[in-house]
């Protein structure tokens, strides 16, 4: 079978058509955008799905991933404002929003974002003190995001978040921070203890003071009452004496003599009947007993008149008031001169 030129052309044509179809039919998967270049110049962007491009003059330029992507920013050394050297790493999320811009405005997109993030981490952290840095992660993230997102705008991408992952101060610094915290807590504990003791002592002193004051007040009150009692007693005695003396002044002196004599003899009886005493106490003037008897006799005479026989009875002199010899008794008050 002689193969003619026509036959060869036909075979070539079939192969060519297959190749053309292969070049012209472009299926774009979801999550990607393909840029189309006509003679090397950007023309349009292919959306996900089945697309046809004109073979020969149009080619696929870039296959852009438009899903959100994660970039791990590697650990780097940063010097803070107060000259502490720390190592920090971060993570950045970005998404291509405009495939054409991301494809042609910037070469090596990921490296660009990475370097931008790294330098901005340095500048943001370098403007803060270490303490600020450790406690203000949100603020750092926010500042980073704002700066980086503004910077990537011409590239048609969006940095959705930048997060500082880990901040590692050097080990000796961490130790120092730990010691500082411990010291602060200890200081607080000691201050509290001292305050407690001080308060307790103050309270105790106040209690003692109050107790003393109350005691003194009690004593003062008691003294006042005692004095009052004595006053009242004196008053009562004075009144009693006055009544007695008034009674004497109004009546006869013999009435009192009777009482005195009675007491006197009663006292003698008591002395005499002391159970185990061999000694009998007698008043110095034994005769005064007799005198007192005489006093009774005198009273009797006065009462019954002078008609009784008093021959056996010794006649004592009529006692005058104020005579201590004949009236053996305490004479508390001198007779009032009227």
């Amino acid at each position, binding site marked *: 079978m002689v193969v003619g030129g026509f036959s060869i052309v036909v075979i070539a*044509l079939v192969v060519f058509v297959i190749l053309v*179809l292969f070049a012209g039919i472009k*299926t774009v998967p979801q999550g990607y955008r393909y840029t189309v270049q006509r003679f090397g110049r950007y023309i349009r962007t292919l959306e996900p*799905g089945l697309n046809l491009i004109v073979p020969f003059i149009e080619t696929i330029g870039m296959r852009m991933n438009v899903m959100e992507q994660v970039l791990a920013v590697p650990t780097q050394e940063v010097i803070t404002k107060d000259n502490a050297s720390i190592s920090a790493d971060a993570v950045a999320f970005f*998404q291509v929003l405009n495939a054409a811009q991301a494809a042609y405005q910037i070469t090596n997109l990921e490296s660009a974002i990475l370097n931008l993030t790294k330098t901005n981490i340095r500048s943001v952290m370098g403007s803060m003190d270490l303490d600020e840095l450790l406690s203000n992660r949100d603020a750092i993230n926010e500042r980073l995001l704002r700066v980086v997102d503004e910077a990537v705008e011409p590239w048609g991408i*969006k940095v959705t*978040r930048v997060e500082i992952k880990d901040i590692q101060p050097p080990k000796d610094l961490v130790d120092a921070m730990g010691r500082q915290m411990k010291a602060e807590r200890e200081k607080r504990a000691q201050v509290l203890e001292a305050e407690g003791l001080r308060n307790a002592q103050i309270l105790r002193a106040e209690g003692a003071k109050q107790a003393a004051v109350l005691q003194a007040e009690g004593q003062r009150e008691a003294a006042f009452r005692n004095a009052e009692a004595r006053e009242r007693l004196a008053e009562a005695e004075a009144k009693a004496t006055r009544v007695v003396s008034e009674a004497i002044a109004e009546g006869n002196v013999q009435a009192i003599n009777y009482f005195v004599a009675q007491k006197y003899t009663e006292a003698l009886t008591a002395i005499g009947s002391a159970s185990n005493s061999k000694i009998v106490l007698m008043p110095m003037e034994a005769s005064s007993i007799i005198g007192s008897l005489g006093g009774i006799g005198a009273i009797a005479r006065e009462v019954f008149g002078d008609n009784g026989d008093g021959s056996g009875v010794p006649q004592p002199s009529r006692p005058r008031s104020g005579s201590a010899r004949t009236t053996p008794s305490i004479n508390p008050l001198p007779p009032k001169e009227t």
Partner: protein
Amino acid sequence: MFDNLIVELGPWSWWLAGLALLAAELVLPGFFLVWIGLAAIIVGALSLLFWESSFWVWQVQGLVFAATAVIVTLIGRRYLYNNNQVTDEPFLNQRGASLVGRTATLDQPIAEGRGRIRLNDTYWTVSGPDLPVGTRVKVVASNGRELTVEPV
């Protein structure tokens, strides 16, 4: 041997080729073998009709096959498939477009036509009439990176 097989099978060889291409489409990625396979099957159907005719030589069959492949591709692109199919996730990978209709408060005043709002825990540059900070705005359109807003 291969020639003999084709001669022996006659028109069925096109059918065989077509089915093989369709099967290959299922296995291989891409979306172009299916059209060639369909073209082969169509040529096979025509072969059954014209197998005895004098003009239906293999060269003609080849030309018809090539033409059919192109035509089937164009028709398939036009009618069997369009890019605006209904999907249950119309805003996949279109971050800006998915925010249309949302409201937010201005984080920065809109000055010289540009400001900033915070949505979904990130910042968006917005354009619209000049407004002070704290104004409630509604996203009405997006061009990818930038959102167009108007005061609520």
